[in-house]
């Protein structure tokens, strides 16, 4: 290819610009350019479904620090290590990911390196930009990190992590309105409107469900509530349960938790209004009982898909013109997961949903779309310019090469944390102290969990049901 092109100076100039920008500071792998992240992750997810977490880690591979997907790689690795019950390694991966995210956040407002990255994204695609970790993924990071600390018997460390998760959610709430508005304004400036986008882009309503925004994660709030309760800070626990119930008001266990703490803390006004919403509350703990909380991770979250669209872009000199775009999308409808049943001595407990990751991911994508499309408009126009230039300078060969390059490199950025569970459920029950056996019913199969219930204390069980794999971890808080 190089032999053909440098006949003309302009061509050589364009080629050298591409080469230099592509070999910028934040390195990336060439496979990223032509193979989407979703298909790269397929074998990893297949191994994860079979419970072969070490194999999945090997398939995942490693990315060098400075690689544009380094953070994402750390997140995937940390999650797989967590599933493999390697708390220390998982803690290390997540801690490194946190450092990277913090560094990203602390960077200057105008970054020169970012400019180069965007420049190379203009001639290739979004996969070469460094991965921005969405807020919901950050809150999941801290949740798993908190569990890592817990399973190493460090409640103080776990509490630090849930505080960090809360900071992330507060930050997200503040940034949210401003960012969405700004992005839409910029999109309009680029010669495209959100209306024309939504005329061609599939509505993700069925993939999203009914979440209000892409960052408020009730699972994180609930976990933080449990940990605060375990450390005796009931007031903090109450606040977090209340935040969680704003997101999942129909969750039966959450309702009971909020009522119980409102009664215990003597919040009479709150208790009255809560009882109106959720029914009468009756205190029922006796001395010789302990609480068992089960967190149930179901399946693996879907990856983003690549979708090709022809959308009109308004150019000031040549009117409306159609360009082909490649955009990420969640097309699958929200997966339905069956409720798990936990049985202990004639009593049955059904699991209740506390977070749907695909909802958050798809909603987050929807919020990112205007900004994404703005970059895309700049890119397709620039690529078209390049093709015209090459066809003028290097004739048919240049035209064909440029067209091939444009088609091959037009690939949506399908990166997202893909080893996360699709849904997390909770079950909370009061059991008599001592050794207990819980029978779990899952898709017609039965599994026994042995727990050592301590009086007046919380026992946490993390139960994973991923594909054909089921496993659990217990800890007394």
């Amino acid at each position, binding site marked *: 290819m190089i032999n053909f092109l440098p006949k003309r*100076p*302009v061509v*050589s*100039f364009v080629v*050298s*610009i591409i080469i*230099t920008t592509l*070999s*910028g*500071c934040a390195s990336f792998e060439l496979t990223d350019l032509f193979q989407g992240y979703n298909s790269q992750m397929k074998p990893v997810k297949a191994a994860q479904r079979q419970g072969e977490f070490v194999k999945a880690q090997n398939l995942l591979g490693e990315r060098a620090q400075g690689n544009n997907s380094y953070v994402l790689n750390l997140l995937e690795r940390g999650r797989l290590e967590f599933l493999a019950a390697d708390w220390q390694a998982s803690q290390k991966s997540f801690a490194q990911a946190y450092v990277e995210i913090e560094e990203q*956040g*602390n*960077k*200057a*407002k*105008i*970054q*020169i*390196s970012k400019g*180069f990255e965007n420049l190379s994204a203009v001639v290739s695609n979004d996969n070469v930009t460094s991965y921005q970790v969405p807020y919901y993924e950050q809150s999941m990071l801290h949740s798993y990190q908190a569990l890592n600390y817990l399973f190493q018997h460090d409640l*103080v*460390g776990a*509490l*630090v992590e849930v*505080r*960090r998760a809360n*900071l992330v959610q507060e*930050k997200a709430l*503040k940034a949210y309105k401003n960012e969405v508005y700004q992005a839409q304004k910029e999109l309009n400036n680029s010669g495209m409107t959100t209306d024309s986008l939504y005329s061609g882009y599939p509505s993700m309503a069925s993939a999203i469900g009914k979440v209000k925004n892409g960052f408020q994660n009730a699972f994180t709030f609930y976990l933080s509530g449990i940990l605060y309760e375990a450390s005796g800070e009931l007031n903090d626990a109450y606040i977090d349960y209340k935040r969680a119930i704003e997101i999942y008001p129909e969750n039966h266990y959450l309702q009971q938790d909020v009522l119980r703490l409102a009664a215990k803390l003597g919040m009479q006004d709150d208790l009255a209004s809560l009882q109106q919403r959720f029914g009468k509350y009756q205190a029922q703990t006796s001395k010789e009982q302990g609480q068992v909380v089960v967190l149930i991770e179901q399946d693996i979250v879907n990856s983003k898909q690549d979708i090709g669209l022809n959308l009109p872009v308004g150019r000031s000199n040549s009117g409306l013109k159609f360009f082909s775009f490649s955009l990420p999308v969640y097309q699958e409808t929200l997966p339905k997961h069956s409720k798990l049943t936990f049985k202990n001595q004639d009593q049955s407990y059904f699991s209740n949903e506390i977070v749907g990751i695909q909802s958050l991911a798809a909603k987050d994508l929807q919020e990112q779309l205007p900004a994404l499309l703005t970059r895309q408009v700049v890119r397709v126009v620039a690529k078209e310019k390049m093709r015209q230039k090459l066809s003028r300078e290097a004739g048919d060969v240049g035209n064909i090469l440029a067209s091939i390059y444009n088609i091959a490199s037009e690939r949506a950025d399908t990166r997202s944390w893909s080893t996360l569970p699709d849904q997390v459920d909770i079950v909370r029950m009061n059991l008599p102290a001592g050794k207990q056996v819980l029978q779990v019913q899952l898709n017609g199969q039965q599994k026994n969990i042995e727990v050592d219930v301590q009086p007046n204390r919380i026992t946490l069980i993390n139960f994973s049901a991923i594909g054909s794999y089921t496993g659990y971890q217990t800890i007394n808080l």
Partner: protein
Amino acid sequence: MNKLALVTTLGLTLVFATGCANKAVVRYGDATAVETTDINFGSTDLQKVAAQMTDSLLLSPVVGTLTQNARPVMFVERLKNKTSEHIDTESITDSISTKLLRSGKFRFVDMGRVEAAREQLNFQHDGGMVDPNTASQFGRQIGAQYMLYGNLSSIVKSNQDKSDVYYKFTLRLMDLESGLVEWADETEIRKTKAKESVGW
């Protein structure tokens, strides 16, 4: 035109090459120098907190009367970390107890080493290698009269332009027998960081 292209390419390559390269340098520094690598809890905060707390404790009139004719025995309970950072609070209590010991006004028992001491005493008595006359006796340790405890909390705020972190460190001295809090003090630290507007 050809030359221009060549020069631009060379220039760009140089920019990238220099942007990525960095060379490691090792040197010694002053351990008490002000450290501002980032906004998180650092060595300067630790030193500041420990120094202010011990000064305040040693200079307080209540403690003056306590230590007039005796060297009270204290033990340090763990500091509660209520911040959003993984801070080694034992390191802070270590600094404080070391400073207090150095003042010569207090004595300490170390709860963290009870097991090690028990092991050593067991060895002296049952190991068969130590002369029983020189072996330290069981049940002769001195009980602590005072407990030192506290917590470290923080408020973190940040927006696009700056981040702000506020630490509050509270320390209290309790008379174990009467349950009275004989002394308490707090130290505050505020750090802000303005983001640079242009950077690499």
